[in-house]
């Protein structure tokens, strides 16, 4: 059987298919469907220093070939994560990447520092791109200067591989990717959700409690693939690609564009088995195409 192991800079994964942050909770619910051990990694729900209530409902709106969410980073906070979620994930041998978010630089730094000192975490993913919280989040992700400053500081306190997750809601994704690379990111994740909204015509009001939300799902895949393609040409660090992946073909678009790993988000809502199925389909694909390593297709569509 072909080995799907993949190295993303300092990060070694047993396979290149991850669960995208916020769509997999802390893994608990999906663990009743399949063994989380199978996944390349679980990127847990965006974690903040203190517990967060999140946004008022409704938080979900369906859109053509996609959905909006405005969860607003509801999460139990660092302490509960360390006490409850992480030990549980470790006990079932899940590979854990922690997605962190903050309103202030200080919060990011504290999180990075504390999580670096914790065993059983594979990497940190800096969420600089959540469109659903008032402060922080996307603010850090849309200005190269602000981002650079933050990443430099986090880099200094973070001993784990550092993934920076980029927002697609920018004029020039390449500029931000380069800024992230040069300020110390080991890996880039892209893309987070596009900012969108739906109006409930019958009530003549925005449908979401938060007014706007983040667009995910197949609808955004062309934007995501384009961004991975563009970023791959200009940075050397590896890319985790995501945005609308539902099956092998979708994932291959990302690999061919230049992603060394992919993450599945909203598709898990439609079919909880999406990720394990994708892993075995990828295995079969590599065997039937006679590929020894993913390297043979990563970035192969570049020209």
């Amino acid at each position, binding site marked *: 059987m072909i080995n799907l192991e993949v190295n993303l800079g300092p990060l070694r994964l047993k396979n290149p298919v991850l669960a995208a942050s*916020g769509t997999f909770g802390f893994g608990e619910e999906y663990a009743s469907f399949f063994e989380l051990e199978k996944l390349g990694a679980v990127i847990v729900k965006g974690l903040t220093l203190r517990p967060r209530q999140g946004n008022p*409902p*409704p*938080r*979900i709106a*369906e859109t053509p*070939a*996609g959905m909006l969410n405005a969860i607003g980073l509801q999460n139990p906070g660092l302490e509960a994560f360390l006490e409850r979620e992480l030990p549980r994930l470790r006990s079932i041998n899940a590979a854990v990447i922690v997605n962190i978010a903050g309103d202030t630089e200080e919060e990011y730094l504290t999180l990075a520092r504390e999580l670096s000192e914790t065993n059983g975490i594979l990497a940190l993913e800096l969420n600089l791109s959540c469109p659903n919280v008032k402060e922080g989040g996307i603010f850090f992700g849309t200005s190269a200067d602000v981002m650079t400053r933050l990443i430099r500081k986090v880099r200094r306190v973070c001993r784990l591989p550092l993934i920076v997750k980029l927002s697609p809601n920018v004029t020039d994704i390449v500029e931000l990717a380069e800024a992230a690379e040069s300020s110390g990111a080991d890996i880039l994740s892209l893309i987070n959700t596009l900012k969108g909204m739906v109006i409930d015509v019958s009530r003549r009001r925005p449908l979401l409690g938060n007014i706007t939300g983040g667009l995910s799902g197949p609808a955004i895949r062309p934007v995501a693939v384009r961004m991975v393609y563009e970023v791959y040409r200009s940075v050397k660090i590896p890319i985790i690609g995501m945005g609308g992946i*539902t099956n092998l073909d979708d994932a291959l678009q990302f690999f061919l564009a230049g992603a060394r790993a992919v993450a599945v988000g909203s598709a898990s809502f*439609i079919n909880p088995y999406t990720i394990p199925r994708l892993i075995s389909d990828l295995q079969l694909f590599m065997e039937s195409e006679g590929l020894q390593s993913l390297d043979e297709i990563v970035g192969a569509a570049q020209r």
Partner: protein
Amino acid sequence: MLSKARVLKIEEIFSGCFFLQLEEQRIAGDSLPGQFLHVRVADNTVPFLRRPFSIAGASPRNGTVEIIFRVVGEGTRILSRLQKDEFLDCLGPLGTPFSPGKEFPVSILLAGGAGIAPLLFLAGTLAGKREKILVYYGTPNSGELLTPDKFLPPGVDVFLATEDGSAGFHGLVTDLFERSLKDDPGRAEIFACGPEAMLKTLAKKNRSWGFPMQLSLEERMACGIGACQGCAVQAHRENKTGYLRVCRDGPVFNSQEVVW
């Protein structure tokens, strides 16, 4: 928890409201009243999300499970076109069911519109185990009424209300219930499902009535299994106030838990 269930029967009960009977042994065996199925209406990216429907009945013996749904949008429209022997992709049973207390000899079931669905199932499981089962059922008019006798076990007392008075009591089901109120809060408990306005009224009035009361709530869902925090409802539980998940912490909540 993911199955393809075969359609045994699909029937339009009244204009725009369908009864769907599925054959799926595992679901039939596991389902409890108050739980729901999260259904993929088509093998397509539009509609993208699954649709949640309360389980309206299940027979482990026959391996069947039922839902009752109203056509309100694209997803339910597609569902309504299902044909016998087609397969429906169902995730479930999901959610926290009703938990009737053995100490209450009287069960009061309060339903508004399609909210009758989970209560039919509940009535079926309570039948013969309670002294009295009372079903109060309200709809806008007699045209939107399913004949509850067809779906209810014998020995259940049904009280109808229609907003236009075309059948039963003329008015809201909550008013009907209030007028006929005579049961002792110490001996009876209430289970309710229906439009938000109805549940809100009930919850408020119940502050003075003081019945033990369980409500089945609705909220827009993505995952349906508790992973995405999408289906938030503000509630107190375990001395904390915050957002609970309708899909996992609910859909059944104690009426005091919910923050309106």
